[in-house]
């Protein structure tokens, strides 16, 4: 908070933190943050609802966010949704019954050259194919992580590397 001369600036960072801890931004968290920042709960609430990354309800352990914007769509992002649906039986906005995966379709995530892609929690998975999606989902479920995640980002890779 010392980073900002005006307390309220710490709102997004604190909300991010809250979401990190609970997986979503709960009402008690909003009240708590309001108190820390000398805001009213409605002020926190309005901010939370403006930003799409905040979940107001609990979601699965892994949040699969598939980009559906034009650039990814050109290279087949609609398929990705289909593959996931086939594998996990959930459509956009749904969560698997074991609360492991939640699927969302989202707008551009800034990886248009390496689509189709999806973000899972903090990590990006790019240039997806059906097989790759399958592996990612399996790995995540089994190990909680997957080595196919990408970054630090550079594309195209320089020749000779």
């Amino acid at each position, binding site marked *: 908070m010392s980073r900002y001369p005006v307390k309220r600036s710490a709102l997004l960072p604190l909300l991010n933190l809250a979401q990190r801890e609970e997986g979503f931004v709960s*009402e008690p968290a*909003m009240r708590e943050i*309001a*108190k820390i920042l*000398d*805001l*009213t*709960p*409605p*002020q926190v*609430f*309005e901010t939370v*609802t*403006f930003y*799409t990354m905040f979940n107001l309800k609990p979601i699965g352990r892994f949040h699969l966010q598939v980009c559906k914007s034009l650039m990814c769509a050109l290279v087949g992002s609609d398929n990705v949704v289909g593959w996931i649906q086939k594998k996990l039986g959930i459509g956009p906005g749904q969560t698997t019954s074991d609360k492991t995966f939640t699927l969302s379709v989202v707008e551009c995530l800034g990886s248009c050259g390496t689509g189709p892609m999806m973000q899972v929690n903090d990590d990006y998975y790019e240039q997806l194919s059906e097989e790759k999606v399958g592996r990612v989902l399996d790995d995540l479920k089994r190990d909680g992580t997957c080595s196919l995640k990408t970054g630090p980002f550079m594309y195209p890779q320089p020749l000779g590397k």
Partner: protein
Amino acid sequence: MATTPKTTTDMITLTIDGKSATVPKGTLVIEAARQVGVMVPHFCYHPKLSPDANCRMCLVEIEKMPRLQTSCSTQVAEGMVVKSASSSVAQEARKSVLDFILANHPLDCPVCDQGGRCDLQDFSHEYTATTSRFKELKRVFQKEYFSPLIETQMNRCVQCLRCVRYCDQVMDVKALAPVGRGTLTEIKAFGTHELDCEFCGGCVQICPVGAITSRLSMYEFRPWMLKRTDSICGYCGDGCQITFQTKNNNLIEVNSTHGAGRNNGDLCARGYFGYHVSVHPDRLTSPLIREGDNFQPVQWEEALELVARRLSEIKATHGPDAVGGLITGRCTNEDVYVFQKFMRGVIGTNHIDSSVRYGHLNGVRALQRVQGTHQWTVSFEDILAADVLLLVGTNVTETNPITGLKVKEAVKRRGAQLITIETLEPAIGAMSNIVNLSRHHFGVNPDAYAAAILGILKGVLDQQAIDPELSTKAHGYFNDISAQLETISWPVIEGVTGSAASAYKEAAESFAKGQKVVILVGPGVLRISGGFGMMMNLLDLLILTGKLTKPGCGLAPLAEENNDQGTFEMGGVGDVLPGGKPVGDREARKALSQAWGRPVPDSPGASLPQMIEEAQKGKLKALFIVGENPRGSLPPSSGIQQALENLEFLVCQELFLTETAKNAHVILPACSYAEKDGTFTNTEGHLQPVRRAIEPVGESRPDWEVFSALSVLMGDAMEYGEVKEIGKEIHNLLPGTRTLGPGPLPSKPDPSAIARYVSSEYKRDLAARYQVPSCASSNSKGVTLTISQSLFHSGKFSLKAKGLMQVESEGKLYLHPEEAARRGLGDGDRVKVMNSLGEMSTTVSFRERIPQGVGVFPEHFDQEIRRLLPYAVDQETQVPYCRLTEVRIEKVTAS
């Protein structure tokens, strides 16, 4: 305009639709246009709010600018050429904006309360929006329960955010949230919760369409059916202008025209939602006479004859001083004037008192003694213009919300520095909290205000911030006060108040540096022991820093009841004659008796506490109580109950059957403020017209009419045909004091009075005032309990307002959550509150702003609370103190 008036006198000339306008630099184009009669249509612009330019309705063409500009956010420039109505491009653009808005608007005007006074309707009409080509789906918001008083219809919302901005910028409450993004943004409270706020009604008033409406008047009217009556609110001393909207003699709603009155069109919950008090089914509708334990309705003649006969008898047998009178500061000036004239002239006694006695008297008396005038020497405008504001013991946003708005504006928008000495602590909650805006906050216990004031005084001395002329002009005064302050050590002040010496010194320095300094004082000072002394010391503070006579500076005690100030000025206090002169003033008495053609008694009038004593002793035989309820206001320890029972004759003139009225022999039904004409004087000393909006309820009559009728029956007629005649009589008696102008003419301090004070008068009680009173250090087990006024109520009167009762219907013991936790108490727990005087049970509720060790109970509810209050009377002003006590709290385990 939201921005501060520019100090620069630069004027700018521009042309708008061919008309030349010359306006100050910084003016917005839309405002300049209005000044030359060009009305630019708009939704989001509002003069009270900073521009947001979101609706895009006010687009105008400005020569040399590439595209259309929003006139609500563009400042004028020299030589600018603006085209509004004369620009077809701008007109087209506005039409398209309407088209866009209507695309998602439900067009449910027939069932919309705003229909007929809706900006969207008006502009659509003006721009004859063609039938929409919008063939898509309209957004539909799920209807959610919003609040007991306010209803939202989000489908109608045009997303101008005026409500949200008002709630933030003007009210500082921030209860409304624009939730979501884009076209699906809707105005909500927190989460799915209902609205929790001050219920000022501002969002309802400022919504340009019917998206936010009042539930109290929902579906009851079409605006064009309503009759409008401008009047003054009857709740607090701020004296807001309100407009009663009535239909067939029914009160439908109350609002306030933008920019109207001392309140500038703003209201609080009491003003906006509290109007149903006048039409409550419990209103007394006919005179009642006691028969055994019951009351019998009778004709006016019978009741009046009985009263006249009994009063005459008692006067004849025991002398006029066996009769006393008590009147409420809710009455009009005319009522009070005729009442005291009746008591003095017809009965022949000065035994008159009023609600002024409960605290306001401490304020006016001190002003009178030091500066020679009993009125504020400042006005609301001076609060707005102040660079330093000192607030002492005034939870101003609750007691006097509109004065609170002035303070908020001064601090938030005009950069005034706020110093607060207040029990409440900074904390954000559902209601605004003035100490949140404070630069120097002294959070003291309710019994430590006096010590904190001494701290500031001592700070001024330490910082050598004394008016340099003072030591020569009033050497002795200065020396004596200095000497007194020397005897008080910093550690003592620090110990009692919990604030550091350095904090006092800093605040004192800010205070002394201020050019325009206003001190506001509330019930926390005026109604607790030592209140008068604190007022005096604050006046000393102004003298020491050389500010008492400076324009724009002054000390302003806040009146709690709407006409407390007027009641004092009309002679509603035993030892004060109309105009504020003491009864002891022979000249004034003479002038008065000449004007009245009746002798004016010279024996000093008894105060309410004295009348209680006299009645207990059996010396006072009869009381005529008008609109007051001492049994409801004073604790049993005052002896009020026995006093009332001792009386041979008690008349109550009332709206409702109060605790006191239940003891009466005769009860006379009176009119409320909505049913009578007259004037109120607000806390600033500003006289304002009160107008009848509905016919008297039942057989109730205006108070003055009753006094007049009684005088006739008692053979000493004061005849008035209408209220104006009384006004004229007062005007002739007190020339120059009654101007019904747009704003008050603040009085000036009287130099001779000040000279008298600093040369000798101050000595009278100096030593007593300059002492740190010992504070009941609350032991670890107990809390200091104070009763206080709630934002949603005013006396017991508002308990009959259904709107307000929906927000707050019972008294609760408010505690800080940690204080409660320490005692193992949860929100909503039942507790027993007790001390040596008595006990009561109530419910605990949390409030962050209340400091630990303190409990607060709203004074409007539960007679029981009064049993716990000790009672003391001020030696100087006879103000009864019964606000503070020490209590123990025990959890009641459900059985």
